[in-house]
């Protein structure tokens, strides 16, 4: 079992992409192999979230370079097995200034699917490593 920790991402489109990509993996691509860790609850001291992250591998998914999920995970439970940053995958280093944060346009949806595939690859690799 792998815990996926996504940023909550209200700040930019990439935050929403991070969230949607994570949910695609949790609900469709690897439902039997993954659980979600609620990041605000985890950061705030959520018992179950922190316990899981201590004993099972985690993958963090951040929308932007603020890296809330990655830094929080490292601080409270240890280095994640893998970290993905959406802005690294979209060719920009910064958040997009255009595009709705709510309803993803075609380009953003396509990027969310690409991020989801990337998360899935990381999940498979982590689980193979743990066998």
């Amino acid at each position, binding site marked *: 079992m792998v815990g996926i920790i*996504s*940023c*909550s*991402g*209200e*700040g*930019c489109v990439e*935050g929403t992409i991070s*969230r*949607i990509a*994570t*949910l*695609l993996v949790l*609900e469709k691509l690897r439902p039997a192999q993954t659980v*979600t860790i*609620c*990041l*605000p*609850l985890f*950061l*705030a001291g*959520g018992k179950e979230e922190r316990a899981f992250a201590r004993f099972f591998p985690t993958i963090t998914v951040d929308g932007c370079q*603020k890296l*809330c*999920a990655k*830094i*929080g995970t490292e601080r409270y439970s240890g280095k994640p097995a893998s970290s993905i940053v959406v802005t690294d995958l979209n060719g920009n280093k910064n958040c997009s200034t255009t595009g*709705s*944060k*709510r309803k993803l346009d075609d380009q953003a949806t396509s990027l969310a699917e690409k991020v989801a595939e990337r998360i899935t690859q990381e999940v498979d690799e982590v689980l193979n490593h743990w066998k």
Partner: protein
Amino acid sequence: MNSTTQNKVVVIPCSGIGKALGTVGREATYEVVENMRKDVTQTTCLALLVSGDEESVQLVQRNKCITVDGCPLQCAEKNVRIAGGDLAASLRVVDALRENRGLKPKSVAFLDSDGQQLTRAVAERIASKVDAILGA
């Protein structure tokens, strides 16, 4: 997003990813800050705030805040208080659910029609609180 513009009410959802009501709270927040009260509201990431991001902390300390929580754990309310935010109102999505009995939003990723209906109800509540805060 994280400007320290004053006199804009800051609406902070919990955005809990594990439950449909977390998505409802998030969507309702966007509905208010991007549409219903877009000139007088803004939002920030709760995770950024909890991480201690200076800009986010100053934002909540310098402006009136409304939190929108998707579950009884109330992460948004608790953490805005801890950050020293000026908490003017804290809303729970479940309270809107109690006023709209029978709605059962199913999916977390993409809201179904019950989820969208509940989102509208929560957005109305947020907007009312904004108006009350600004004395509109």
